[in-house]
Structure formats: structure tokens, C-alpha cells
């Protein structure tokens, strides 16, 4: 290797640094009628397609659709990548609130990051609208008067997939469970709902986590149990790998249902229908659900990255910002910015209604509730066009879909 010219390198680096440093020193003035929304999610890793730039596109669409600009409210959006690391997420959140006058932290997938943000936002009396984290602790033991959990949680996923699946005929279950706290909790919750609905759990197998890539022996074990449903109590790469290998074994084509407990439509898209067909999963939004969701999807599609259709996390961002901006317009910007708790209370006081997520209400513990849908992934023959992936199996009404208000151990409810 020839010697690199150090002088040139140093000169280049210095020039770059000087150039890059300039915009950072421009002071950020904020007009009196401006609210600032910080979209904090994974822009680069595992959840990029599930949330990422798609959530930002949905937020911008919400700002446009809400029509608040015409009513004199100026809305600014900042975007941060928490890289699924709680320390990065909490640094960005503190900086946004302390220095950049951000009023709302939005989206935040990855439970550990969401819980960290939850604490900071409460300390600073701002607003946390969580669309994409799964942990039901956000409206349970760690519930906060500054937080609304918008789109889904682990309890709702387990209840719909476990309970509604039994009603749809899948009454015997076998679990393939990732051997750590999250997997155990998913399996425990789901088996509870399966039994409550009159189903039976025939057995389970624990897969070492992380590091399991070969699920074949576990799938064989699951098949030999003759259960009608194989529950996948895992997430991310584990779910994808087990689905792919189940497809190779022809599990679903032989009539066994595969129920993924944490799965999004973008995962179905990247797996392809050939592999994902027959899979069962729960979502609170599907783009092709009704006329309103189709209209919303048509509007936002041009700005979605890579032609992705919005998933429930992204649609939740749209819905949350629609409701927030409606509240801001009613309260006036100075009042809405003054206290996060007050604004959240106003948001809780009225029902939500928008094209993406339909009608819903927000409970005192910060849980937003709405009907929840159990979908089955279509076969390639059933699919009529691009992104025509789901057929509806069961709908759980809003009142039954989520954890009952009194059972979450939330301090806001007890007092």
C-alpha cells in the first residue's frame, strides 16, 4: 500500500469539518405559533421498513390533511434515528426537548427505547405519542399522564391471535418460543387466551436466543404434535427464519396454521406470498380494509419510500398527529405547548377519528383503543394485485381487544 498523502487527507478533513460545522451554528428561532414534532425511530436497521422514513411520510401527510396551516398553526418535523439503542434514543430525546423546543416525541419502536423516552418526556412535561413499541408496560406499571400508546401492544396481539384464532377453528396449539423474557411473556399470554377461549395447548419448545438459525427440528416437533396452530413466540429475524423453513417443510400447505405473534405487512412483502401464505397475524390497520383506509393510502403512497404501503405503525403515526393537531388548533398553540399533561388530557377527552385508523377512544391510562383485526395471508392464487396480501378472519371489538383498564396496575387509574 502506497503512503496516503497525509497533508491532503488532513486538508480535506479540515475543509469538510469546517463546511459541516456551519449550519449547526445557525440559531433556531421559533415563532410563537409553531409546534415541533420529533419522529424518533429506526431509520437504518431492522425496523426501517416497518417504521423508518414511512412514518415521517405519514406525519407530513397528516399535517397536510389536518389543514392546521391554514388556521395559523405552523408545524415543523425533526427526524432522529435511535438505532434501537436506548442510550442513543434518550440522548436525542433530551436534546430535542431541552435545546430544540420539540413538543411531541412520536413513533419510537423498540420497547427499551420507548420506556426510556417515556420517563424523560414525563420529567419534562412534554408529549409522547407511541405508535410502534410493543410493551404493554407503557400503559401498565410504567404508565404516564404524558403518554398515549396508539397502535398496538403485546396484550392485544396475544389476545387477538390467541383468542380469535380459537374462534376461527384453530383450537389446538403448539408454541415455538424464543428462550428469553419477551418470548416467554408472549407464549404465556397467548396460551392464557387460547385456554380461555376453549382451546388446548399441546406443548412448546424453547429455542436458544439469540443465535438460532435452524428451526427445522423444532418445526418437526411441532408438526408431530398434530396441533392445528403453530404459534411463533419470537420476533424479527427468528420469525422470518421460522416462517421460511416452515414453508420449505410445507407446513401450511398441509393445513396447519402458522400464527406469528409479532409480524408486520412489510415482513409479508419481503417474504413473498409463496413463503408467507397461510400465515396468521394481528394488526390494527390494513391499507385495503375499507374505503377510508384506501383513500388514505392513495394520498400518502407517492411519498412513501420505495413504494411501500403503510403498515400499522406508520398509519398510527398519521392518526396520532391528526388527533394532536386537531387538539392544538382548538387549544391554541401557546396553551398546547405550555403543559404536556393538559394537552394529553384534552386529547383523551375526545374520540379520535381519521381515515387511517378509523374511530377510537383514549382511556385514562393512555391506551388508545379501536377494533383489532386477525388476518390470514393469501395464497398467490388468491392475491389480485400488488400488496393484496390479507384476508380478514376475525374482528375483535375495541372494548374487548385490549387489557381491561383495571388490570394494568397503572397508577393513573387507581388514583
Amino acid at each position, binding site marked *: *500500500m502506497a*503512503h*496516503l498523502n*497525509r497533508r491532503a*487527507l488532513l486538508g480535506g478533513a479540515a475543509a469538510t469539518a469546517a463546511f459541516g460545522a456551519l449550519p*449547526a451554528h445557525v440559531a433556531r428561532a421559533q415563532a410563537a405559533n409553531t409546534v415541533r414534532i420529533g419522529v424518533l425511530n429506526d*431509520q*437504518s*436497521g431492522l425496523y*426501517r421498513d416497518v417504521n423508518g422514513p414511512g412514518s415521517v411520510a405519514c406525519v407530513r401527510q397528516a399535517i397536510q390533511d389536518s389543514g392546521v396551516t391554514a388556521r395559523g398553526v405552523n408545524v415543523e418535523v425533526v*427526524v*432522529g*434515528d435511535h*438505532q434501537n*439503542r*436506548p*442510550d*442513543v434514543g*434518550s*440522548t*436525542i430525546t*433530551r*436534546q430535542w426537548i*431541552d*435545546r430544540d423546543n420539540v413538543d411531541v416525541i412520536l413513533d419510537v419502536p423498540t*420497547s*427499551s427505547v420507548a*420506556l*426510556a423516552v417515556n*420517563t*424523560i418526556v414525563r420529567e419534562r412535561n412534554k408529549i409522547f405519542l407511541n405508535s410502534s413499541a410493543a*410493551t404493554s*408496560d407503557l400503559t401498565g406499571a*410504567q404508565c404516564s399522564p404524558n403518554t398515549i400508546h396508539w397502535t398496538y401492544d403485546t396484550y392485544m396481539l396475544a389476545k387477538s391471535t390467541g383468542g380469535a384464532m380459537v374462534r376461527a377453528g384453530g383450537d389446538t396449539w403448539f408454541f415455538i418460543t424464543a428462550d*428469553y*423474557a*419477551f418470548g416467554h411473556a408472549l407464549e404465556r399470554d397467548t396460551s392464557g387466551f387460547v385456554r380461555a377461549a376453549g382451546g388446548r395447548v399441546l406443548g412448546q419448545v424453547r429455542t436458544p*436466543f439469540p443465535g438460532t438459525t435452524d428451526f427445522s427440528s423444532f418445526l418437526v416437533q411441532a408438526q408431530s404434535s398434530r396441533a392445528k396452530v403453530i404459534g411463533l413466540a419470537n420476533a424479527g429475524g427468528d420469525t422470518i427464519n421460522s416462517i421460511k423453513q416452515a414453508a420449505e417443510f410445507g407446513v401450511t400447505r398441509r393445513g396447519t396454521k402458522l400464527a406469528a405473534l409479532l409480524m408486520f405487512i412489510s415482513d409479508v412483502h419481503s417474504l413473498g406470498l409463496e413463503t408467507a401464505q397461510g400465515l396468521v397475524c394481528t394488526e390494527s390497520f390494513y391499507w385495503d380494509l375499507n374505503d377510508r383506509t384506501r383513500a388514505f393510502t392513495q394520498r400518502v403512497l407517492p411519498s412513501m419510500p420505495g413504494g411501500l404501503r403503510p403498515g400499522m405503525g406508520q398509519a398510527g403515526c398519521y392518526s396520532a398527529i391528526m388527533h394532536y393537531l386537531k387538539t392544538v388548533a382548538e387549544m391554541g398553540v401557546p396553551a398546547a405547548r405550555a403543559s404536556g399533561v393538559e394537552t394529553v388530557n384534552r386529547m383523551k377527552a375526545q374520540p379520535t377519528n381519521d381515515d387511517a385508523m378509523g374511530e377510537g377512544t383514549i382511556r385514562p391510562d393512555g391506551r388508545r383503543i379501536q377494533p383489532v383485526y386477525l388476518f390470514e395471508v393469501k395464497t398467490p392464487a388468491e392475491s389480485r394485485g400488488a400488496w393484496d396480501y390479507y384476508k380478514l378472519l376475525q374482528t375483535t371489538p375495541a372494548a374487548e381487544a385490549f387489557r381491561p383498564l383495571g388490570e394494568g396496575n397503572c397508577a393513573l387509574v387507581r388514583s
Partner: protein
Amino acid sequence: MAGPGFSGGDFKHEEQVFLGFTRTQLIAFVLMVVLVVVSPFYFYPVFLMKVLCFALFACAFNLLIGYVGLLSFGHAAYFGMGGYLAGHAAKEWGLPPEIAILIGGATGAILGLVIGAIAIRRQGIYFAMITLAFAQMVYFFCLQAPFTGGEDGIQSIPRGVLFGVFNLNSDMTMYWLTAGVFLIGFLLVHRIVHSPFGMVLKSIRENEPRATSLGYRTDDYKLMAFVLSAALSGVAGGTKSIVFGIATLTDVFWTMSGEVVLMSLVGGLGTIFGPVMGAVVIITMQNYLAEFGAWVTVIQGVIFVLCVLAFRRGIVGEIGNWLKVRL
């Protein structure tokens, strides 16, 4: 063990004037202290606290690789475990922050004693692999143990009240504590390196059989250095969890072990100020380039390659070489 990466050798002899510092080192140290004192008024204190925690972590790591020539690839274990125990002590046992941080340090020391006693029996790549293997065991323990909260981590750790007087919920008060911990840790590393004990460590780095032939029990010296390094890493981890109020799996994951290697390399192995500079550069990049997403890791990779190709002594090492002084 000493490759061109170490900035030992052909410097003119400089007299130690104060606390074992040479004149130039003293100037650099005073400059650093001034920067530490002044910067919270210009930069965001929480960000600076993160930099200081990692700077201390990198200094602790550098004690081992820079002065004993031992490349540990499992330092995340002491950093992360120190953070967990400190967080647990502050949250569940209600202990004050200064005790919690010391518990973090003790955790690092005990882990370091156990792992170090086994690892120092081998050298080079085997040593690195043994430390990595143990760090992975610690990671799996943290993933499964009930008190760590699995992938949610320990959340809402209270910052508490320092010595029963100073309320750390104010970012500035917290900053002064962090700065104090960092400066004490930094001076401790400096003192260790320039003590007779440190001289023996350096002789082990340069030629271990010769140190043995001179009658030194090199294994004992290496283990002692290992434990000191692990303890300081635990202090850094404990301070970080008090600052951020969280302790999570990120800090025990193997990538954290890689990051601290990168910091030391970029700043300059075997220089006193190098790891601090490396931590500043890497954490600043992670923070201010966060909007570029995946490009952060690509940029880090490019910087690593550039350092190895063109600046083998690291930033501080190159500056020292240019000025013909030891920094």
C-alpha cells in the same frame, strides 16, 4: 508486542514536573481540564456526560492495551455489568449515587478478577478470544437474569442526591459529578502508568520473557492491571447508568467492546490523552451524524481504515510525534 502503533521510543527525555506529568503533558492536562469546565456552558451537558463516561471507559481499556499490550475484546462485560449493578443498587436498594457508582466499580473488579485470572494464561489472539467468550457469557446472563429486565433493561434509575446534599436531577450538578469521576479516573490511570508498577507493565509489553528473567511474576502484574482496568470500566458503566437513568443490553453487547477498541485506536494507543480524544470523536460522530442512519457505521469503518493506513499512532499519537513530545 510493540508494533508501530505504539508511540514509544525516540522521544527526547523530558523531566516529570508535576504528578508524573512532563511539561507538555501538564499543559495538555490543564487545557483538558479547562475544556471540561468550560464546555457545558457551550455544549449540551447530557451529550458531554456521555462523552466523559466513554472517555473514562476508553482510558481504562487503554491501560490494558496501551501499557501492557493485552487486547481484551470483552470490556463491554465490565462496563455493562457495572452499569446494571449500579442501576440496580440505586433503584431497588435506594442507595445514593456515589455508592451506586462504587458498586459498579466493584462489580467490574470482581468480574475482572475471575475472567482475568483465566484469560492472562494465554497471549495474543487466544487472550482476546477468551475475553470475548466470557463477555458473551455475561451477555447471556444479562439477557436471562430477572433483575436486568431482559431486553427492556433497568429503566427509570433515579439520579438521587449526591452526599445527601447535591440534587443530581439538575443536569449541571450531574455534569460536575461526571466530570469529577472522569478526572479522578484519568489521573488514576496516569498515576498507575507512571508508577514503578507501570514501568513493569511497560516492560511486559516490550518483552515479557525478559521481564520474567529479571524476576518479575509477570502474571501477577498482568492480572493486577486487568482488574484495575475492569474496575474503572465498571465505574464508567455505573456513572453512565446514573446519568441516563437506564441500563440495557447495548452496554454488554460485543459491539460495545468493539467500539472501545475503535476509540482507543482513533485517539492513539498507549498515549494518555488518546482515548479521551477517541471517545470525543466517535461519540460526536454517533450523535451528530445520527440522521445519516446506516452511514454512521460506514463512516466509522472508513475512519478506522484511514487510521490504520495513514495515522497508525492515532490522532494524539500523530500530534505527539509531530511535536516530538510524549502526550
